[in-house]
């Protein structure tokens, strides 16, 4: 390769400045890396790196604080929105976001997420929904699909016994305090671009003080789903999107006026 070509002005892809220079611990084919990257790119674009405090969850993304070059705290399981509330209320001019999985946000942290949205806390939540508990080895989550096999629903989720998946974005969108609530997917490049725009809009919502913002990202877990990374991407499209339709569930009038 001609070394003359390797110049900053020719770069089409590089590590965002809001990332640290370490390798992630995520499994091959997992979309956490993609979700992280979208956040880092948005923080770069909006020049928010030095103003941002992230709140990491418990779950696969428990080590998220290692990957972002911003201040970070590590919450107890499900409590990230409460911790973010504490930070944002004393430092309202900083940018505070939580990064939470489905077990963290929709199961143990249900009260904290609903009330943070209800209060209209001016924070941003990135909700990674892959329909399973990853870190503990593939148990049923509140978002596990009907019939989906997990280690704690080995015959497939039986809705008679184990209930139905929870659609968090739809629920939270009902709250007056929510300014921006959307669901996107990370299963192909077109959807990743849309997801990026949503993450940007969510942080813009916070910068403008327009209330609670959340982007739900449909994500993969090839390891615990027991299929290949490529099959996982297809599985999101074939099985998850019918249950968790993509779309904008709440875009307040003020947020609707944001032009990126």
């Amino acid at each position, binding site marked *: 390769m001609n070394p003359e070509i390797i110049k900053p002005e020719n770069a089409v892809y590089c590590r965002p400045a809001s990332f640290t220079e370490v390798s992630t611990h995520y499994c091959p084919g997992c979309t956490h890396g993609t979700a992280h990257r979208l956040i880092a790119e948005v923080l770069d674009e909006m020049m928010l*790196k030095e103003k941002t405090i992230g709140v*990491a969850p418990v779950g696969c993304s428990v080590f998220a604080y290692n990957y972002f070059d911003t201040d*970070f*705290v590590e919450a107890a399981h499900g409590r990230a929105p409460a911790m973010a509330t504490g930070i944002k*209320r004393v430092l309202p001019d900083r940018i505070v976001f939580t990064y939470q999985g489905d077990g963290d946000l929709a199961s143990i942290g249900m009260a904290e997420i609903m009330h943070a949205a209800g209060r209209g806390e001016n924070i941003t939540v990135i909700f990674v929904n892959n329909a399973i508990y990853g870190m503990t080895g593939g148990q049923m989550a509140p978002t596990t699909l009907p019939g989906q096999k997990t280690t704690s629903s080995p015959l497939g989720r039986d809705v008679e016994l184990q209930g139905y998946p929870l659609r968090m974005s739809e629920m939270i969108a009902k709250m007056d305090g929510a300014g921006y609530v959307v669901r996107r997917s990370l299963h192909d490049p077109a959807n990743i671009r849309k997801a990026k725009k949503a993450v940007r809009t969510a942080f813009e919502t916070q910068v403008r003080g327009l209330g609670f913002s959340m982007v739900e990202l449909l994500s993969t877990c090839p390891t615990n789903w027991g299929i290949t990374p490529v099959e996982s991407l297809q599985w999101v499209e074939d099985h998850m999107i019918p249950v968790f339709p993509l779309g904008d569930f709440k875009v307040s009038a003020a947020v609707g006026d944001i032009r990126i």
Partner: protein
Amino acid sequence: MTRELIKGNVAMAEAAVRAGLEAYFGYPITPQTEILEHLARRLPELGRAFVQAESEVAAINMVYGAACTGVRVMSSSSSPGVSLMMEGISYIAGTEVPVVLINVMRGGPGLGNIAPAQSDYNQAVHGGGHGDFPRIVLAPASVQEAIDLTVASFDLAEKYRCVTMLIADGNIGQMMEPAELPEMRPLLRKDWPWATNGALGRPRRILSSIYIDPPAEEVANLRMLKTWLEIQKNEVRYKEYFIEDADFVVVGFGTAGRIALSAVRTARQQGIKVGLLRPITVSPFPFAVLDELASRAQGFLVTEMNMGQMLQDVQLAVKGRAPVEFYGRTGGMVPFPGEILKEIQRMATTKLSLTADPRQAWLERMLAK
């Protein structure tokens, strides 16, 4: 400043404001709700943060978040609510950030009742969340002392980067007494070298209670032990009354200690050489002074509004060198001075056993009533 008639809960809340409290997160629970109510009005008018959380679980995690930014932050609750905060307290301790928590204790276990009790001593002093960590626990016996200890608790929490808990009881919280509040301190937001308040012009920081490598967790735990030994060395506080020539020593904290003082005064008038030791820090516990007293006293009477929790720490200090007796009221019952006086008189006139189980003997006396 002048003395004013003020309710314990309001006094603690206002003392916290004047000590520089920047944020409060709490949940209503009797008998401490006046703390929350006072701050609901006071903090917003000063431009400081107040949130009524959806639960004690959320409240303590909001406190955790605010503490990570380095501001003075607190919560308050009563026994069942404090139980709900235990997870958060452990995380806060493991992250080594300063937090103040007031527990206005009530009768338990379970839902119990809303009357004064001291039955969370073990939870505060010996328990209080999973894992090993230092904790400072202060026990006020009057509204004035509750004010002074609230102010001190912020300094202590910051000095040692630990949880400082005030264990008052429903009596202290609900009682009105003449007391003097401190002057309003100007807000002093310190730029702590550990605070996560945005990495503006500095390398980013992480605050966490996770040490995924066991060797690193061991290092952190040993650091916390070192902190604890410093606390033990520097922060033991207690009050002695009529101790110099005492043959018998009553030991009681908070309200039980205060009631015992009335009994001790009456016993002195009757010629019984009895004194009172009232621990103000129940953690760190005043082991050294008890150790010294154990070498010369003829007997100890531990009096508590529980079934003998601090009793075990007194026994640990006395090490079998003198008889240790116990008198408690429990379940939200408060002893009268006359009950404790009778116990003092009994000790002064009967031969005491070095080996009898003081709790069993107390139970038998209670059931015989």
